[in-house]
Each structure stands twice: as C-alpha cells, then as structure tokens.
C-alpha cells in the first residue's frame, strides 16, 4: 500500500493548513496591538485588565469545585458498578450518552426552569453552575475512569486486598486509586479544559466567568480577542498535552483521551 502514501501526504498537508492557518492568522493579528509596530501590546493590555484575572480566577475556582464534585460522585459509583453491580453498566452507558442528547444550551434552559422557583431557588447559587459542569463533564470523567478500571484486574486486586484484611476504605485509597492515577489525572485535566473556557452555561446562568468575559472582549475590541484566543489555545494545548503525556507514560494505551469535549 506504499504507493498511496503520496496522496495521504496531500490530505495530511491540507489538514495541517486547515489547523494551523487560523492559528497563524490569529497570532499575527494579536501582534498588531499598537499601530504600525509588531509587538505584544495586546497581550499587555489583556493582562492589565482587572476583569481578566477576576473572571479567570472565578472559572478556575468553578473548575476546582467541578473536579472535586465529579470525582467524589463518579469514581466510587464507577468502581461500585464494576465490582458489585455489573448489571447497572448499561444504565451508566446510556446516562453517559445523554449529555450529547441534551446539549449545554438545553441543559441551561432546563436548569433555569427547574431551579428558579422556591423551594429550590438555586439559580443564584454557583452550586447550580458547578452541578451543570459536573453533568457536562460526566461522560469524559466516566469514560476515563471506566477504561482505567478495565485496564487493571479490579476483582483480583480487591479480593487480594480483602483477604489480607483491608476494609473498604483501605481498598479504595490504598489499592484502587493509586492504580487509577493516570485515568484520574486525565479526567481532571479534561474537566479543567472544558470548564475554564465554557460559555453556554456561564452566560445563560449569568456568571462573570472567563468564557463570557472573552465573548464580551470580542464584541468590543479587535486585537485583544486574538491575544485571548492564543492564550486559550496554549491552555488547551497544555491540558491535553499533559493528558497525552500521562497516558503515554502510564500503562494505559492511547485511547484518544478527550474525544470532542462539550464546549462547542
């Protein structure tokens, strides 16, 4: 099949152009912050804007809470299903498909409708935003943890640990979680990448998050948005790059971590 390599290079090249041309254009654009001179003044202005740091820290905080909540909720559940309740596996698979059927825009709509009236007036609480983020990132966290669990002999390990006298806590923290390190780290970084730049839920639930801030800058200014896009790309590249690096050093093979996160 070597004869077709030439054509393959052509398509690969076309793909590269499609990927990199917008990035190059954005980078060049971002350097035009000061008239007539190429430089990083657009970046300086972005960093000088107090709103930048404020909204970024807000999103970072939301990301931390999302990670904590989704790990606390999803990891024990997935382990439990694997060990004690294989019958619930199809249920989990269907639930993991549902965030695709209910995109963030619909989720936001439903959350507002369900939680804007007493007794559950949660709309003004950041907890509702975090809950929405847990739902959005659930498929990715679940897939990651599930494949991590399948890669190890969970049943054998748990029987060995229990016959040596370990209780449930010891089993979880001493045996299972250390073996799940790779999967957990990739779930964490993916969740960060999704939450930090997320727009839909943040803008519709009216939170001063990083996504809405970027959109606002894009509406009013010309060169700063390009600088923000480059920084944001660097952030995504950093997160996913770390996931891939972890996946490669860990024993789990590269299973395309982070397939199409839900921030579109």
């Amino acid at each position, binding site marked *: 099949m070597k004869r077709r390599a030439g054509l393959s290079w052509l398509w*690969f090249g076309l793909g590269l152009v499609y990927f990199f041309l917008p990035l190059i254009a*954005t980078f060049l654009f971002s350097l035009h912050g000061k008239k007539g001179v190429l430089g990083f003044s657009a970046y300086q202005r972005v960093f000088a804007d107090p709103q930048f740091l404020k909204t970024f820290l807000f999103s970072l905080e939301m990301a931390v809470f999302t990670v904590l909540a989704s790990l606390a909720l999803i990891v024990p559940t997935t382990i439990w299903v694997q060990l004690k309740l294989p019958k619930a596996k199809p249920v989990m698979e269907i639930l993991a498909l549902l965030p695709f059927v209910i995109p963030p825009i619909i989720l936001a709509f439903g959350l507002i409708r369900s939680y804007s009236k007493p007794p559950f007036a949660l709309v003004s609480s950041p907890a509702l935003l975090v809950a929405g983020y847990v739902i959005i990132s659930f498929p990715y966290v679940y897939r990651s943890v599930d494949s991590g669990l399948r890669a190890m002999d969970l049943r054998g390990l748990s029987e060995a640990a229990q016959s040596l006298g370990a209780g449930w806590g010891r089993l979880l923290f001493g045996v299972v979680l250390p073996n799940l390190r790779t999967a957990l780290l990739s779930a964490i970084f993916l969740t960060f990448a999704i939450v930090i730049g997320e*727009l839909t839920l943040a803008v519709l639930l009216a939170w001063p998050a990083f996504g809405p801030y970027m959109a606002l800058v894009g509406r009013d200014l010309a060169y700063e948005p390009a600088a923000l896009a480059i920084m*944001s790309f660097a952030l995504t590249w950093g997160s996913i790059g770390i996931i891939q690096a972890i996946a490669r050093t860990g024993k789990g093979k590269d299973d395309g971590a982070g397939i199409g996160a839900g921030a579109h």
Partner: protein
Amino acid sequence: MPPSHSDEGKKKAREARLLFAARGWLRRIGPWAGILPFLAFVFAFMLLPASSIFIGSFQDKGGAFTLDNLAHLLKPNIFSSYVITIRISAVSATLGGFLGFLIAYGITMGGLPKPVRSFMTTFSGVASNFAGVPLAFAFIATLGRVGLVTVLFRTVFGFELYGSGFNLYSFWGLSLTYVYFQIPLMVLIITPSLDGMKREWLEAAENLGASSLQYWIKVGIPVLLPSILASFILLFGNAFGAYATAYALTGGLINIVPILIGAQIRGDVLHDPNLGYAMALGMVIVMTASILVYSWLQKISSRWVK
C-alpha cells in the same frame, strides 16, 4: 401426634421462607443503593431539567395542556431556523468528516510514518477541544473582513472574498468554522475502525486478483460504511447543539436553533416562553434520533470491526 406441633413447624418454615426471600430481595436491591447518590444527582440536574422542558413544551402560558407550541414550530421563521441549522450541521459534518476520514486513513493504512500518527492523534485531541469563543476569534482573524486570508486574497489574487457573497457571520462562515473541530473529531472516532480493518482481507483480495478499487467497493466500503455513517451522525449532532462558537462569532445574530433558544432564555424574544420549550424539545428530538441511529450503526459495525 399433636396437631399444634406440625402447625408450628409450618409457621416456622413459612417464616424462614419469608426471611430467605427478604434476604434475597435485599441482596438483589442492596447493591443499587451504592449508586443511589449518583443516580439522584443525575436525576436532579439532568433528567428533571430535561423533562421539565418536555412538559413545558406541551403547556400553554396558564399551564394547561396544549399542542399549539409544537404546531408553532412550523411558523416560517422558526421552521427556517431548523432548516439552516440542519444545513450547517450537514455541510460541516460532510466536509469535516471527509477530510477527517482521509487523514485517518493516511495515518492508519495510507503509509504515513508512525510519528505522524502520534502527532496527529495528540493534535486532534487538542483541536477538537479548541472550540467556542477562542475558535470564533481565530476565524475572525482568518476570514473576517480584515482577516489574513481575506487580505491575502485581495492583495495577491485581487479577489474580494466579501464581494463574492461570502460572509463569515452567515451560513458558509459558520460551517467552515465548525469544520475546524469536525475534522479532528472525525480523526479521533474513525481511527479505531480503520485500525480494525484486517490486513488479511486486503491480502486475500489481492491474492484473488482484485484491484485496489475492487477491494474498496467489495470489502472496504461495506465494512466501514456503518462506522462512517455513525461518525457522520455524531459530527452532525455535535454541530447541531453548538451554541458557544456561533454566539461568539455572530454575537447571537444568526437565525439558528441554539441561538434562538439562547435568546429566548435571556429574554422573551418569541413572546411566548412555551414556544421556547417547544424549540428545545425539537432539538432534543433531533439529537435523540441521531444518537439512536448512531447506536444502531455502531452495533452493526461492531460485527466487523472490533
């Protein structure tokens, strides 16, 4: 023999049976308690909100049952927003799926070297996540009125992109922007299927004297078709529900379904909140149909490609 004795025995036996049954029931139900917190969370923050949309789309302003909202979906301006959303999704899924497939083919069986493959997988992971607001900015810098490509066309080829009817903030612009995350998504989801194509099939076909074209028509495409269609549907749904990119690109001024729903949430632009629910329901129906067809196609393709 005193009758009371046997009665007591019977009673004991019944109690034991009951206890046994109860214990069996507990053993069967008990493990479900372990996933109860998770199920409760999913119910509260996904299933309940979704069903409230469902219910709302069958209610009038006073809360009484009605089918009017669904009928209003056929109003020209609402119906046309569905048509344009479907067109954008189909075009971006087709273009992105086509190029993504060719790239995935190149890195699996097309003879591209191994480092290219691992670069491509990593990069696709990043690029498929590079969506939303930053992606919109990147395309404004590329194809906007003073974007790099627009200016390049003007100065090098003397061609006015915007004079030819192209506009980044309308149908083609949005479609081309979506293609950016559709290509890498396609690479990520179709690569496993291409990996599953067995070398023996090609060798057997070649030994039997088949040409490369015959191999593809008789073997390759029939085996891959379900996976390709399934991927297409996933890309379609991915574009159909996309809000952030379109919002940041057009400032909420394009008449597509997610944008209309978003506008409805922020203020009563349809002059009828329940019509908003009906639009959301319409979107959920499209998405549900896609995911059902997707699962069905996946099942078919898993017969061949493991």
